[in-house]
């Protein structure tokens, strides 16, 4: 129901108005002067106010002004009752904030039409306000949802960081450092380096297809499957066989000395089922600490970069299939000698395929240049430099794809 | 930015290289406090390899100088390239440092 306040110092007028308005279905309030009208407006907030122009204390236009400057939340439709018909007066009334005029003496038919128009406006305004507040509520709910998803993702990102090798842990005879920059909060890239026994140091870098949550779920699983804690020895050292501690022990039986067998076992266990085309590329390697013999297998991953003491860089290996795509895929081991003072860089293609403003890729050459130039710099400096070069190339330090790089240096003084 | 130090008689020579800005200010301050803890209060800053310094780097130097002076020590600065020297003048901080052409000159000044 719409509430109408009638303000007039002449009682017979308010009586007539009151009678008709009630008959037409309005809830009617009455005030006999402007100040009383203003009190009622503030207290009862009527949607429509019908007010006389000329009143002893507070005139109609002044009442309009007060209502407009009060800034009430809902709209108050103001109609001035007036004997005036001069154009100038009408302008004055409009300037004061009146919405309509009814001339005195008024005709009942005209009054009805004018009030219908006012009521239509009031209803429209109500619907609009309601729609807006519903929209606000929905926005609020969306924002809350976004905030909670963001908090969850940030927590997930923190957990993912704990899966990466601890920079403060020193490995016998080796330094390492890394770059890890997820394109969203969490990455489909994962890597690790860890001793498996007193003579072997293993390392890997994996890039799961796609990025975001689906990729991160698989990369996290892979990190667990490949982590040193989840394997235990079945046979003696050399020729050792490691086995996953999870339920299906037979699923992942990995011969330690052959990274190719690791790739083979993973390819069997993580074959895409057709619907979920999720696969990953991997570099897996193992260094024999006694003579530096290093064996790596490359599963569809960019070739790692080996830097000989002195700074010269070369890539090692030549391709291979990604894991989880082709059931009958075979993987090869490639061996080289990790010299004292040499460095090995494993990276994901997010680095070389990082696109600049003009669409050009960062490229392998630019990467090799940075690595070559950083020869006598600590690994940290080389990585910082690389990240800066990538940001400059891209024109931004947020990236489309996950970036990761694992740098391993064999110290001079060992052996 | 890299910061290394070695002992030369009573002086500790702190050699800096690269860019000295807000990113390295904290590292510099921690090196100075480590030296003070080890009671190494006579310090020569070899800045010949510093190719850039901004006001954050200058601020770190002033902070370092204050910390060392409080312990009754001194900081001598050596090897400024012309561009870097300009900022010492621009900030008028050349007035509070002992500045020498070379590390050798700083050592020889006794």
């Amino acid at each position, binding site marked *: 129901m719409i509430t109408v306040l009638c303000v007039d110092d002449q009682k017979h007028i308010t009586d007539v108005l009151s009678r008709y308005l009630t008959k037409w279905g309005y809830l009617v309030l009455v005030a006999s002067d402007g100040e009383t009208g203003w009190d009622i407006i503030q207290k009862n907030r009527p949607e429509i106010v019908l007010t006389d122009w000329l009143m002893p204390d507070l005139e109609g236009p002044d009442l309009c002004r007060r209502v407009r400057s009060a800034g009430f939340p809902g709209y108050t439709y103001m109609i001035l009752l007036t004997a005036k018909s001069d154009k100038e007066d009408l302008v004055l009334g409009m300037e004061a904030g009146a919405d309509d005029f009814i001339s005195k003496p008024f005709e009942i038919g005209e009054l009805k039409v004018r009030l219908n128009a006012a009521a239509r406006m009031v209803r429209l305004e109500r619907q609009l306000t309601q729609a807006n507040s519903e929209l606000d509520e929905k926005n609020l709910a969306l924002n809350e949802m976004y905030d909670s998803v963001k908090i969850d993702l940030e927590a997930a990102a923190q957990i993912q960081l704990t899966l990466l090798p601890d920079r403060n842990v020193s490995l016998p005879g080796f330094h390492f450092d890394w770059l890890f920059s997820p394109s969203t909060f969490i990455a489909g890239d994962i890597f690790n380096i860890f001793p498996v026994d007193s003579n072997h140091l293993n390392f890997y870098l994996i890039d799961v297809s796609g990025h975001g949550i689906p990729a991160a779920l698989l990369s996290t699983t892979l990190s667990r499957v490949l982590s040193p804690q989840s394997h235990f020895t079945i046979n003696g050292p050399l020729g050792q066989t490691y086995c996953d501690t999870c339920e299906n022990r037979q699923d992942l039986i990995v011969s330690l000395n052959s990274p190719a067998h690791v790739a083979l076992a993973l390819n069997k266990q993580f074959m895409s089922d057709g619907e979920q085309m999720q696969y990953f590329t991997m570099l897996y390697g193992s260094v024999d600490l006694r003579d530096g013999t290093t064996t790596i297998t490359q599963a569809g991953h960019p070739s790692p970069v080996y830097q000989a003491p002195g700074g010269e860089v070369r890539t090692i290996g030549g391709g291979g299939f990604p894991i989880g795509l082709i059931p009958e895929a075979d993987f090869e081991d490639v061996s080289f000698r990790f010299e004292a003072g040499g460095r090995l860089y494993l990276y994901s293609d997010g680095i070389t395929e990082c696109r600049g403003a003009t669409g050009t890729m960062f490229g392998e050459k630019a990467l090799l240049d940075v690595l070559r130039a950083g020869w006598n710099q600590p690994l940290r400096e080389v990585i910082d430099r690389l*990240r800066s070069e990538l*940001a400059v190339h891209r024109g*931004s330090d947020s990236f489309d794809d996950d970036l990761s790089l694992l740098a391993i240096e064999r110290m001079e003084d060992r052996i | 930015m890299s910061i290394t130090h070695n002992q030369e008689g009573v002086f500790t020579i702190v050699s800096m290289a690269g860019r000295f*800005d807000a*990113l390295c200010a904290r590292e510099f301050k921690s090196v100075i406090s480590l030296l003070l803890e080890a009671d190494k209060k006579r310090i020569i800053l070899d800045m010949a390899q510093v190719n*850039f310094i901004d006001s954050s780097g200058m*601020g770190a130097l*002033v902070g370092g100088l204050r910390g060392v002076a409080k312990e009754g020590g001194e900081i001598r600065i050596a090897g400024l390239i012309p561009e870097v020297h300009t900022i010492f003048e621009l*900030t008028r901080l050349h007035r509070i440092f002992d500045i020498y052409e070379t590390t050798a000159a700083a050592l020889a000044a006794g």
Partner: protein
Amino acid sequence: MKARTIELSAMLDSLRSGALFTDEVIGEILGDSPPPHLGYNIALAVSEALTNAIRHCKSSEKVILGFSWDSEHVVITVDDQGCELHLEDVPEPDFEDAAECGYGLYIIRTLMDDVTLENFTGGKRLTMTKRLIEGNKPS
């Protein structure tokens, strides 16, 4: 007129990328035989402006460094999402007391030919202009 920009996270780490970017662009602007000190002074003003912007922003916010230039001028802009600031409210450095901070804007104003700061809703832009030919303002 040529232009280049880089968008950086408001973290001190970004000074590294900002400096590399600035060096690269200065090389492009000044070519093989730059006038003495000019490149250094531009790099210094940029470093001061970036450090100020980064210090006054949350780390989740972005700072955008932009260069545009022709043969006569280089115009450098630093946009940040930090709070409102008016150049006239920034005090001169306390030279007498050999202050540890507060030199940034003074250095920028000394080295650049024109410096303006505009505030917008949600951020501000520092614009620094430097003439590349004859008549550099003496420092």
